[in-house]
């Protein structure tokens, strides 16, 4: 049973290599596993889909480049849905890199659906202060964001004429990678104002959001890359989410295999020592 002992002290670089291969191979040779839409993804879709044209959706970009593989595809799919439905989109950010990602998403999606800056969507950018920013924007969006990212006065942007406080917002979609983020919106705005909150988070944040889903403080939730893939399918815009699902699947199988092999080796060697 010498090989079992060897298995227990395997070089970490072999583990790294296997992991890399488990992602590279399915990307090169896709299996095309069918996707199922979860009820939480469907709920997000329905919240946006049921809004009449002209309704205002606040999209919050509360993430950085480290979470982009999960939240960028979510943002693109949701933005396509919002702009295609002829809803007004107001983008803000509680994380400073979010403001740049909002530009990126708008630049890639707006031309596809023929949306126009200032008329259909606007990027108000980032403000520091976390919970302070949300309480402030709930009272007065123009005072919290006096200028947008192009340094145009918010008061002079056509679509912002009638969007001044939280009462003018019909739905909040928060895409968040931690705090400040979806929890901050639920706590600071959801509990004080009658506006529906939905959103998407990185997979690691999903368990922390589940109690809010059950209590109804949060309606619908996209979880990580698989949530993004499901939304991409719903709005028919394949991207990194759908493209990465096979690789994600195989990587999960590999991790499960690692846990089992590690334990088999441990048990076998342990018994022998006894």
């Amino acid at each position, binding site marked *: 049973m010498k090989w079992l002992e060897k298995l227990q002290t395997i070089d970490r670089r072999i583990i790294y290599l296997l992991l890399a291969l488990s992602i590279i191979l399915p990307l090169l040779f896709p299996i095309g596993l069918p996707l199922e839409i979860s009820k939480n993804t469907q709920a997000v879709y329905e919240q946006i889909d049921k809004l009449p044209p002209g309704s205002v959706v606040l999209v919050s970009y509360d993430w950085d*480049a480290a979470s982009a593989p999960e939240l960028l595809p979510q943002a693109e799919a949701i933005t396509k849905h919002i702009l295609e439905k002829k809803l007004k989109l107001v983008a803000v950010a509680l994380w400073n890199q979010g403001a*740049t990602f909002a*530009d990126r998403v708008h630049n890639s999606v707006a031309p596809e659906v023929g949306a126009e800056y200032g008329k259909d969507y606007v990027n108000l950018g980032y403000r520091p202060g976390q919970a*302070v920013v949300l309480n402030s924007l709930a009272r007065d969006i123009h005072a919290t964001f006096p200028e947008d990212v192009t340094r145009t006065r918010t008061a002079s942007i056509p679509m912002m004429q009638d969007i001044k406080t939280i009462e003018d917002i019909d739905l909040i979609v928060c895409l968040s990678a931690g705090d400040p983020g979806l929890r901050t919106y639920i706590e600071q705005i959801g509990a004080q104002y009658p506006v529906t909150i939905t959103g998407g988070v990185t997979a690691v944040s999903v368990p922390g959001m*589940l109690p809010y889903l059950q209590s109804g403080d949060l309606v619908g939730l996209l979880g990580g890359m698989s949530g993004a893939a499901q939304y991409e399918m719903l709005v028919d815009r394949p991207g990194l989410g759908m493209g990465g699902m096979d690789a994600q699947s195989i990587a*999960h199988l590999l991790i499960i295999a690692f846990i089992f092999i*590690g334990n088999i080796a441990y048990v076998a060697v342990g018994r022998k020592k006894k």
Partner: protein
Amino acid sequence: MRRELPIAITFVSGILFLLDYFVKIPYLSEYVVGHFLDWAIVVAAFALLLGAANLLRIHVQRIVKGKKEWWNSLILLVAMFVMAIVPIIWTQQNAVYEYLFKHFFEHLNGTMFSLLAFYIASAAYRAFRIRTKEATVLLIAAVVVMLGATPIGAAIWKGFPQYSDWLQTVFTTAGMRGIMIGASLGAMVTALRIIFGIDRSYFGGQ
């Protein structure tokens, strides 16, 4: 004065915002709280620059003293100034800023955190040992969730997504809710202690 003034300011601003939550007092809620919120955003913006000021101090010293690998400090400072000055002059929608963000920063930041994937794989192999009943339950829940969230789970057995949803809707939500209620109580007590000046640790060592 040195000790009392900051504590008094903490108390007044804290109590004001608490009052505003429970009872809306016409002038106070509309006017004073509104102004305080506007001010807090600006002070937070100054605080944001504080971190950069610290970095500047440390790395200028490293360069001046010619410490080991001082050129890295120089790279850091140059990167800092370029990323700050370019958008300050030409906004964040400027081509140079967007280029630097897209081709340098995004990859550095993204890759830094993706290293964790390798470590978690290594930890799964070496450290995830099923020694107790508790660990076995933890493992089963983890496996069902990992398979339930990706298409391969449903391809292996239709039950995986369903049981993953069941575990998360019933048990994870219940456990997280219990923890959340407890943590909320803790957060409220801590915040009250700060507002009433009982906890002053945030002033640094007093």
